[in-house]
């Protein structure tokens, strides 16, 4: 036990030296809030543990900045207001960097770029791309309001009208996929990874069609004026430069098998 802690201390010391140019937060506690509902960024695995790309990245960032992280849970609906009010230091759940959101919270630099894919039922033959979907007035799509798939659906697929009745709004992303499978709607947009997860777990019930749609940059959110933005941006740049981000992408997007 003693030996272990000495070893751990030595490792901490060496990493502090190696990243000597990064700010030192001197063990400061960072309260991070997430929902665990966005695989593979953060989710509950088969053993009931909260894991994912963002957990690994946050642990790495904390190690490099000499900070300690504690995690809290909140639903997505409540996350931006709660972080904006300063109830938590940082929010992470694959949040797209958007100007309207930047009015109430500060964003970190992007740590990931996501592309949307079109998820449809396995036997869908009426359309093969976004234009084909938009052209047929009978076809419906489902989305979670205020999320990236919703905005891509409105602005890149349909006509830019956020009140378009062809978008059915649902409370969770999973519910939109269930509505798709049940035949209530004909299209759901999702990022490639989650899309593949659903296709693999569906036994042919779902498939992905067409070209990739609009790209979205993800960032962490902070209360306005937070002094954590600078150090965390430095850590992200540092991890980008030494290949850590790429290694995380390989681990979670290529090697990890979701839903098993």
């Amino acid at each position, binding site marked *: 036990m003693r030996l272990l802690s000495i070893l751990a201390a030595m490792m901490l010391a060496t990493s502090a030296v190696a990243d000597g140019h990064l700010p030192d937060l001197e063990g400061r506690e960072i309260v991070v809030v997430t929902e665990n509902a966005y695989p593979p960024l953060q989710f*509950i695995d088969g053993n*009931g543990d909260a894991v994912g790309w963002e957990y690994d990245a946050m642990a790495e960032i904390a190690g490099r900045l000499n900070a300690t992280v504690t995690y*809290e849970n909140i639903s997505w609906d409540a996350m931006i207001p709660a972080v904006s009010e300063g109830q938590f230091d940082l929010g992470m759940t694959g949040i797209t960097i958007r100007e309207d959101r930047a009015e109430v919270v500060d964003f970190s630099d992007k740590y990931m770029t996501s592309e949307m894919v079109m998820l449809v039922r396995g036997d869908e033959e009426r359309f093969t791309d976004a234009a084909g979907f938009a052209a047929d007035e009978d076809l419906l799509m489902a989305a979670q309001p205020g999320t990236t798939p919703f905005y891509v659906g409105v602005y890149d697929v349909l006509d830019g009208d956020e009140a378009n009745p062809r978008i059915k709004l649902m409370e969770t992303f999973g519910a939109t996929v269930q509505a798709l499978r049940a035949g209530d709607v004909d299209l759901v947009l999702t990022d490639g990874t989650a899309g593949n997860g659903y296709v693999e777990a569906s036994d042919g019930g779902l498939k992905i069609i067409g070209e990739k749609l609009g790209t979205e940059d993800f960032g962490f959110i902070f209360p306005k004026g937070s002094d954590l933005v600078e150090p965390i941006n430095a850590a992200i740049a540092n991890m980008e430069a030494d290949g850590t981000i790429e290694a995380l992408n390989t681990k979670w997007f290529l090697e990890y098998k979701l839903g098993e």
Partner: protein
Amino acid sequence: MIPTSPDDRDFPWWLVAVVAIGLYVFWQVLTVEEYSRVLNTLQRGIWVTIYVTLVSYTMACVLGLLLAMAALSRFLILRQVARFYVEVVRGIPIIVLLLYVAFVLAPAMVAAWNWIAESIGFEPVRTRDFSLLWRAVIALTIAYSSFLAEVFRAGLQSVDQGQIEAAEALGLNRWQRFRFIVFPQALRMILPPLGNDFVAMVKDSSLVSVLGVTDVTQLGKVTAAGNFRYFETYNVVALVYLTITISLSLALRKFEKRMRSR
């Protein structure tokens, strides 16, 4: 005293069906890996659900009884305050109350506390120190205290006026009349609806998931988001709730029967 409905004499086939389906799903949990993983994840949520239910219900009972006593008080102001509270809270959906307490009342309470704390030299607290779990518990307490206040009020009023007059004639004071005459008799009327509301509270505790409190429902939501299997996940979620609610209902029915036969 309490009428027995005719279907009480029916053999409980419904229970046989429920238990059979429950056992089937439970067998799935034991043998199919997808199912057992779901239950494994939900486990921690079961304790949160039970904790939220028990704490909120206990606090709601205390608050509800105080409100009922206020509603039956000699003083106009107490009666009107109790009436105001009950009518306002009963008229608001629980989910709205929950969001209101979490994001309006809680920050306001923290601000008020800090304003007082500053003047008497206490450390100020931050909104984040007021956990979402406790905000949810407070919201459920407020909501259910208004239901339970009505249950208590009806029970207390059901005691025959003659009994109270007799107690007065015997020289018992107000507290003694309440403690020895009114309350024991009212309890028999109060217990069945009190039990029903307890079972209802188990179900309504699932509303705390909108705040992200990791109860059974919220963990079900995140489990389904991670394993992409809605069918299996919500089968287990429903099984967990049914196990709690039906066994509670049966226990309460047995208890009521014993009370009745006394």
